[in-house]
C-alpha cells in the first residue's frame, strides 16, 4: 500500500491548483481504497484471483515525461471509425478524429461542468475507488438526444515504449441522450517489455429509447495487469448490446455492474476470452433487475490453453415486486490443455414471482465425437481442431453487429488460434 500512498501524494503535489471538490473526492476515495485494500482470496467475490503482483511491483503514475514519440500511424485499429487516441495515458487530439457534433471533454473540464457525474459515482470495489482517487486519464463523450451516429467511436488506449512500470487510472464517461443510437469501441492495446497496470472505469449512461452497441477489446501486452470496471445505467426502453473480447494481459479482471433505472430495458452482454500460458482472466458481472419488463442475456465464453486460468462470476438479481423480468445467463468454456483451469459460478437471486430466468455453465475439452466426425470426412486432425474451436468462438463473434469490428475480431481470434495450435 505504501507505493500507492506515495503515488497519491505525488499526484496531489503535481496538481496543487486542482478544484477543491475534486481533491476532496480523490481523498475520500483514496481512504476508501486504503480501507478496502487490494482484494485477498478471503473475499468471496475475489477469491479465485491473485492480485498480489499489484503490490509487489512499484507502479508509478504516468506523467507528461512518459509520452513517447508518437507513431505515424496506428496499425492496430478497427477501420471506419471516429477515433479518440490515448497513448501511455495521454490524450492525443492530433491523432484523433472526431466530428464536432460529438462532445468530447477531458475529465477535468467535465468535472467542472457536470460534477454530479463524478460525485454520484459509487466506488463499488477497491479498484474503482483507486481509479476515483488517482483518475489521471480518460475522456468524457456525450452523444446528444435524437442522434444516430454514422460511424462507431473508437477509443484506443495504447501503452508503448515505457521505461519503467507505469500505471494509469482512466475514467471514461459515455453518455447517450434520448432516442439516439451509437456504437462505442473501447480498445486497449499494448506493446512493451515492462509490466504496467491499467485500471479503467467506464460509466455508461443510456437514456430513454436509446441503443448503444458497446464493444470492448482488451489486447494489452502479456506483461500487463488490466483491472476494469464498467458501470451501465439504462433508462426506459434503453438497449445495450455489448461484446467484450479479452486476450491480452497476464492479469485481467473485469467488473460489470448493470442497473435498469426504469422499465423496458434490454441488455445483452457477451464475452470471449482467449488465453494461454499463465494468463488469468476473471469476469464478475452483476445485473440488477429493479424495474418491470426488463430483459438481460449474458453469454460468456472462455478458450483456455496451456496453464491459463479463467473465472466467471455472474449474478442476476431480480428485486422484489418487479414484473415480467426475463434473464438468461450462460457460460461455456473450452479447455485446450489439461493444465488449464476454469472457475465458474453463475447465480440467480430472485425475489419476485413474475420472472423467466435461466442459467447454465459448461466446461469441457474438445468434443472427441465431433473431432472423429470431421476426421472421418478426410479432414486432418489439426484442421478439425481448428474448425471446432473457431466454431466455439463464432457464437460470440456472430453477436458483433458491426462488420468492421467483426472482421477485426475474427482475424484476431483466428491469429490467436493459429499461434496456439502451432505451439501445441
Amino acid at each position, binding site marked *: 500500500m505504501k507505493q500507492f500512498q506515495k503515488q497519491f501524494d505525488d499526484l496531489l503535489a503535481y496538481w496543487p491548483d486542482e478544484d477543491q471538490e475534486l481533491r476532496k473526492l480523490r481523498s475520500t476515495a483514496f481512504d476508501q481504497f486504503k480501507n478496502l485494500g487490494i482484494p485477498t482470496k478471503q473475499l468471496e467475490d475475489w477469491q479465485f484471483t491473485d492480485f498480489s503482483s499489484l503490490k509487489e511491483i512499484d507502479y508509478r503514475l504516468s506523467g507528461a515525461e512518459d509520452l513517447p514519440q508518437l507513431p505515424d500511424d496506428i496499425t492496430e485499429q478497427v477501420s471506419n471509425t471516429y477515433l479518440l487516441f490515448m497513448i501511455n495515458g495521454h490524450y492525443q487530439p492530433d491523432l484523433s478524429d472526431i466530428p464536432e457534433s460529438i462532445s468530447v471533454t477531458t475529465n477535468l473540464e467535465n468535472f467542472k461542468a457536470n460534477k454530479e457525474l463524478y460525485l454520484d459515482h459509487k466506488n463499488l470495489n477497491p479498484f474503482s475507488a483507486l481509479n476515483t482517487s488517482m483518475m489521471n486519464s480518460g475522456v468524457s463523450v456525450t452523444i446528444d438526444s435524437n442522434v444516430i451516429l454514422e460511424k462507431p467511436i473508437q477509443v484506443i488506449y495504447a501503452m508503448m515504449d515505457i521505461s519503467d512500470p507505469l500505471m494509469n487510472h482512466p475514467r471514461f464517461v459515455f453518455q447517450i441522450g434520448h432516442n439516439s443510437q451509437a456504437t462505442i469501441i473501447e480498445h486497449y492495446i499494448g506493446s512493451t517489455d515492462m509490466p504496467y497496470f491499467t485500471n479503467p472505469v467506464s460509466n455508461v449512461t443510456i437514456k430513454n429509447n436509446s441503443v448503444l452497441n458497446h464493444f470492448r477489446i482488451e489486447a494489452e501486452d502479456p506483461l500487463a495487469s488490466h483491472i476494469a470496471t464498467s458501470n451501465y445505467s439504462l433508462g426506459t426502453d434503453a438497449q445495450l448490446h455489448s461484446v467484450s473480447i479479452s486476450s491480452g494481459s497476464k492479469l485481467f479482471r473485469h467488473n460489470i455492474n448493470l442497473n435498469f433505472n426504469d422499465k423496458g430495458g434490454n441488455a445483452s452482454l457477451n464475452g470471449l476470452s482467449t488465453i494461454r500460458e499463465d494468463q488469468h482472466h476473471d469476469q464478475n458481472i452483476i445485473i440488477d433487475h429493479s424495474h418491470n419488463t426488463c430483459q438481460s442475456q449474458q453469454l460468456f465464453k472462455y478458450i483456455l490453453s496451456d496453464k491459463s486460468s479463467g473465472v466467471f462470476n455472474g449474478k442476476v438479481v431480480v428485486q422484489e415486486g418487479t414484473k415480467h423480468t426475463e434473464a438468461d445467463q450462460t457460460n461455456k468454456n473450452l479447455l485446450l490443455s489439461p493444465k488449464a483451469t476454469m472457475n465458474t459460478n453463475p447465480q440467480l437471486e430472485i425475489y419476485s414471482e413474475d420472472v423467466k430466468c435461466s442459467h447454465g455453465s459448461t466446461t469441457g475439452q474438445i*468434443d*472427441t*465425437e*465431433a473431432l*472423429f*466426425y*470431421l*476426421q*472421418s*470426412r*478426410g*479432414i*486432418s*486432425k489439426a*484442421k*478439425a481442431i481448428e*474448425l*471446432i474451436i*473457431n*466454431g*466455439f*468462438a*463464432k*457464437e460470440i463473434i456472430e453477436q458483433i453487429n458491426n462488420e468492421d469490428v467483426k472482421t477485426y475480431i475474427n482475424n484476431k481470434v483466428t491469429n490467436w488460434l493459429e499461434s496456439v495450435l502451432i505451439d501445441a
Partner: protein
Amino acid sequence: MLIIKNIHASVDEKEILKGIDLSVKPGELHAIMGRNGSGKSTLANIITGRDNFIVTEGSITYNGINLLDMATEDRALAGIFMSFQYPVAIPGVNNAYFLRAALNAKLKHHGKSEVNAADFMRLMREKVKLVNLDESYLSRAVNDGFSGGEKKRNEILQMLTLEPELSILDETDSGLDIDALKTIAEGVNNFRNKNRSFLAITHYQRLLQYMHPDYIHVLIDGKIVKSGDIELANQLEEKGYSWLES
C-alpha cells in the same frame, strides 16, 4: 476391395467382435444385420478407426493396404465413408464450409485443384435436391438443431458429395419415416455403380427392401453366424434372431 480376416475387437477391455471374416468386392452391397449389442457398430467403427475401439487380433485390408495402421482421415481420403448412426452436432461450424473443406481435402489428396466457394455452392444446390434437404441447411451449423431425419439426409448428402468407394451405412434407417427412408434409399441406389461398395448395418429388413443387397450377414455375439441373400432377411423378419442362436 475390403478384406476382413478374423477380426477380434474390444471396447473398454470387453471383447465385442470375436472373429469376423468378410470380403466386399467392388459394386457389392452387403447388409450386416443383428440385434443391438451384437457388434454391428463396432465393426463400422474399427473400419473407420475410432479411438477406444481396439483390434486385438486379425487384419483389415482395403485395396491391398493395411487399414488398421491408418489414421481416420487417411482412411477417408482412401475412399471410406461412414454415415453415422448418431451424427454429431458441431455448433458454429458451417455445414457447407465443413463439406467443402472435406471435399477439398479429398481433391488435394488426389492431386486435383480445390473447388472454389461459388462452384461448390452450385454443386451443392444440385446435391441437396437428391436428398430432399432444403438449401438453407447448408448455411446452418453441422447437424445443429437438425431433426433425426435431417441428420440422416445430411449424411447421405455428404456421401453423394465426397463420392467414396466404400460407404458404411450405420443404422441409416433408424428414426426415419417411410418417406425419408425411400428418399435415402433412392439416393443410395442412384449412387450405386460397379465400383462403389456398401456395408449397410441395420436391425430391420425395412431398408433392405429398397436397397437390394447382394449379401446378408447375421451378426450374433460378435460373430457372423449366417450369410445369405435377401431371403435370409425375410426369414429374420418372420422368425427373429433366436433360431440362429446356438
